[in-house]
């Protein structure tokens, strides 16, 4: 028997939700019948809208999907303008101000405090420059991820941008794939760096070479069933299929059709592709794909290129991100800018778009490490570009502790999280920068901070993994983190080992300082932090460092989950103005 969500989806889902959204927008938030809100909020996700958490009723998060994170400066400016005009709430964020945009780990953009009444205007503005929120959330093809510099990267196997554009056009708004059992995440990688992070996606096209009729053909190997959520992380599994670039759409259609038909619609917890692969094994996935979903005979896997993967791989010999200045194929440069925790003030987004325009750039890229790239900077303009004042804040050469951090949304807006995340990670990074010596040779050090055991900040694949928890300190319940070490992707991906439980949030910086001190003292030569961890057993890892209170002070140590908004002057749930109208004033109540 189908789940409640499946019944809601049967009644209305996909493109038709747009009409309902427009109707509710014109009639106001209160026109959504109270007893139907759960159903409508679930359906709105298909159009990129998530209702915010308790205490913030009537406000939505809006997600814009940008394939491979790739945008034009004009599109970026529109995002900034929409954020500035519509993504404002009753209270400012103390670090980021009144309006801001979040760049996500799947190369999308999230805006908060959106009123449903503004949604039609927002859609119109976004669509006027070719942006869309369609299928940014919900049970369908999500935003396709990959390297935003495909086609420009001087060091790549296949330019996947035309392929991804084609997939995006085919599978967005396609009735055959509108209603899948659960989300469907696809990565297409054409570079040598593994920047698509295919291992953590439902479907991954990975660069490969195969000898066919005496010729070496460039294409992709296919992996399926990766993902980090539900406390059941899996790396995608090899189904022994090689795919020529022109066959990618057929194989992608086949596999998403297979998931549509065989995925578990009776238990949403079990609905992801990774669990179907667990149940069937890769061989059966391949045989069913061949028998029922593709006409051409599938080729066996080619030779992969994973040995060169360095993206988020924790290697000592290569950067694990796109921050910095890189040469393009055409002799120009792309410049990767560090955006701490992926959040950028709306005014800065607009300024960056104008800057890109002024330097004749035609490409902006959002990366899976929540950073931003400006492409097409001419050789003769490069030094002037690097001197631009905006690049002091969003640096191509940041301090290592300001460079590698990812954080999820957290208790600020999310209904699952149990701790404050983004602002806390900003405070951690600043404290580490100001107080902890960087081990010699370390240029990027990846800390991923997630607010709960869901895995939105990808906590299992970082040098240091922080996952929200609670503990007791001096008699009080305080926010805390479980700590994991040594995860990462690369040729041989590995999930973090969990080492400490319930470290009080204000003792985490001290723990990291102690840990890095031990690493610096005990490592061999230029051993990377990840291999330093991999070389040690459980007991040795537990003995590496102790949590410690330091000069770091945490103003939000208590239970931010119980506030209506952690940064409000009166943060108690009863002080919430929500639900509100578009002017942030409380809506009239019946009593």
């Amino acid at each position, binding site marked *: *028997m189908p*789940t*409640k969500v499946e019944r809601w989806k049967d009644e209305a889902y996909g493109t038709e939700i747009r009409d309902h959204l427009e109707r509710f927008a014109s009639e106001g938030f209160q026109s959504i019948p109270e007893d139907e809100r759960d159903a409508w909020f679930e359906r709105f996700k298909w159009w990129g809208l998530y209702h915010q*958490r308790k205490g913030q009723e009537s406000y939505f998060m809006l997600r814009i999907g940008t394939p491979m994170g790739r945008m034009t400066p004009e599109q970026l400016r529109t995002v900034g303008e929409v954020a500035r005009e519509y993504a404002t709430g009753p209270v400012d964020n103390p670090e980021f101000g009144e309006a801001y945009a979040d760049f996500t780990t799947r190369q999308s953009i999230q805006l908060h405090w959106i009123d449903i009444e503004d949604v039609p205007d927002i859609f119109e503005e976004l669509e006027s420059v070719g942006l869309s929120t369609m299928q940014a959330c919900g049970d369908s093809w999500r935003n396709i991820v990959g390297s935003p510099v495909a086609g420009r990267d001087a060091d790549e196997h296949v330019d996947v941008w035309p392929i991804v554009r084609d997939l995006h056009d085919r599978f967005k708004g396609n009735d055959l794939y509108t209603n899948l059992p659960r989300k469907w995440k696809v990565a297409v990688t054409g570079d040598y760096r593994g920047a698509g992070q295919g291992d953590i996606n439902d479907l991954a096209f990975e660069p490969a070479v195969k000898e066919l009729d005496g010729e070496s053909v460039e294409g992709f190997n296919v992996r399926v069933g990766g993902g980090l959520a*539900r*406390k059941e992380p899996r790396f995608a599994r090899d189904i022994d299929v090689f795919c020529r670039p022109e066959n990618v759409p057929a194989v992608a259609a086949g596999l998403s059709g297979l998931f549509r038909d065989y995925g578990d619609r*009776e*238990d*949403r*917890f079990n609905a992801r592709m990774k669990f179907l692969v667990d149940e069937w094994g890769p061989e059966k996935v391949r045989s069913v794909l061949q028998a029922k979903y593709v006409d051409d005979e599938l080729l066996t896997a080619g030779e992969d290129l994973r040995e060169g993967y360095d993206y988020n791989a924790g290697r000592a010999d290569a950067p694990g991100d796109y921050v910095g200045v890189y040469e393009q194929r055409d002799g120009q440069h792309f410049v990767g800018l560090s955006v701490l925790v992926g959040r950028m003030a709306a005014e800065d987004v607009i300024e960056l778009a104008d800057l890109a325009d002024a330097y004749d750039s035609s490409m902006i890229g959002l990366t899976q490490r929540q950073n931003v790239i400006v492409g097409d900077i001419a050789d003769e303009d490069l030094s002037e570009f690097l001197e631009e004042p905006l690049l002091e804040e969003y640096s191509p050469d940041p301090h290592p502790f300001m460079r590698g951090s990812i954080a999820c949304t957290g*208790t600020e807006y999310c*209904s*699952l*999280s*149990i701790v404050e995340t983004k602002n806390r990670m900003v405070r951690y990074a600043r404290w580490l920068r100001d107080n902890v010596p960087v081990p010699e040779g370390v240029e990027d050090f990846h800390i991923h901070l997630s607010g*709960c*055991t*869901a895995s939105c900040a990808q906590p299992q694949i970082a040098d240091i993994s922080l996952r*929200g*928890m*609670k*503990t*007791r300190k001096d008699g*009080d*319940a305080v926010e805390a983190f*479980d700590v*994991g070490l040594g995860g990462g992707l690369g040729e041989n991906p590995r999930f973090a*080992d*969990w*080492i*400490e*439980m*319930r470290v009080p949030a204000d003792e985490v910086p001290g723990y990291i300082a102690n840990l890095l001190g031990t690493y610096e003292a005990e490592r061999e030569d230029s051993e990377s932090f990840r291999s330093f961890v991999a070389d040690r057993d*459980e007991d040795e*890892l*537990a003995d590496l460092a102790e949590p410690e209170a330091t000069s770091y002070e945490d103003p939000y140590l208590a*239970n931010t*989950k*119980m506030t209506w908004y952690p940064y409000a002057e009166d943060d108690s749930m009863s002080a919430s103005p929500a639900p509100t109208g578009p002017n942030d004033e409380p809506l009239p109540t019946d009593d």
Partner: protein
Amino acid sequence: MADRILKANAFTTFDLLEGSVEGHGFAEDAPAVLNVRTARRDPDEVTLELELDNVDLESVPAHADRVTLSSSEARTLATELRAAADRVDAASDTVEGETADGADPGGGEP
């Protein structure tokens, strides 16, 4: 160290309780997660699940314990818990509704 077995998010009933494990020849204390859950679809039983932080335990491997209760058994348990809470309140001045650690009672699975 093994990862947690149980999820811990804003819908978890208690993410911070004091627990203990006792066996023949061992007794240890550890923080614990305690959660009440029902299946999302046509639930026919209540599950009560408990996990002690494995990092604090040497005598038993990382694990979670679960018991399933019928709706009637769950009500019996709730009645007993309420009566026991009343006795504790009567013996002290604890304000009703305040839990020992200040954590809020959640509502099972989202």
